[in-house]
């Protein structure tokens, strides 16, 4: 029997795998993917709660998140293209001109 906890565990796992992806991967594209993973984890939890509270809000919110995630991804990719054109690299750690 799959209970709410299973869904929520999965969603939290997805989320934190995403978090660690952001922290540990160096390639910007992978970092973007990890962020998407985090958002999808959140989506899953929204859908779960929507099911268990018997409200529609969660579903709608999931739509919103998907829509905005796409927009975000588009801008992220645009930034990535711009960076690659200028710097010929997509390694996150190469971008540390500004510090101190």
């Amino acid at each position, binding site marked *: 029997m799959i209970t709410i906890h299973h869904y929520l565990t999965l969603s*939290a*796992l997805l*989320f934190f795998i995403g978090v*660690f992806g952001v922290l540990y991967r160096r390639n910007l594209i992978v970092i973007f993917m990890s962020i998407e993973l985090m958002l999808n984890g959140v989506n899953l939890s929204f859908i779960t709660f929507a099911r268990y509270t018997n409200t529609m809000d969660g579903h709608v919110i999931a*739509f919103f998140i998907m*829509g905005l995630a*796409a927009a975000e991804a*588009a801008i992220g990719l645009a930034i990535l293209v711009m960076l690659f054109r200028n710097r010929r690299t997509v390694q996150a750690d190469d971008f540390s001109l500004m510090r101190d």
Partner: protein
Amino acid sequence: MPLAEKYSSLFFLFALALAVPTIMVFLAWVTGPRRPGSEKSLPFECGVDPTGNPRRRFGVKFFLVALLFLIFDVETIFIFPWAVLFRELGIFGFIEMSIFLMILLLGLFYAWKKGALEWE
């Protein structure tokens, strides 16, 4: 309220979810042998020494198309539920969706004017 009671275990789930990747990272760090060498940091190209500049041309055109596709594709998630409930939402829904589509179309127009749709 039983719902809240039920969720109190959520907190432990959160901790668990945090712990699992942490442990994974930690284990990888502890157990994994780390012998960095010049050989190992080379890109792996089927045993053949890499030739040429690995930083090749970047297919910006593909990215642009992918970008546009991503946006216009995902926005259909708003159109789909509207289509399903078209009759119930009536004229109001129609106007609202028209505004939404108009804005999207403006975006498309912008992309077009900027030459994002030209392949060459």
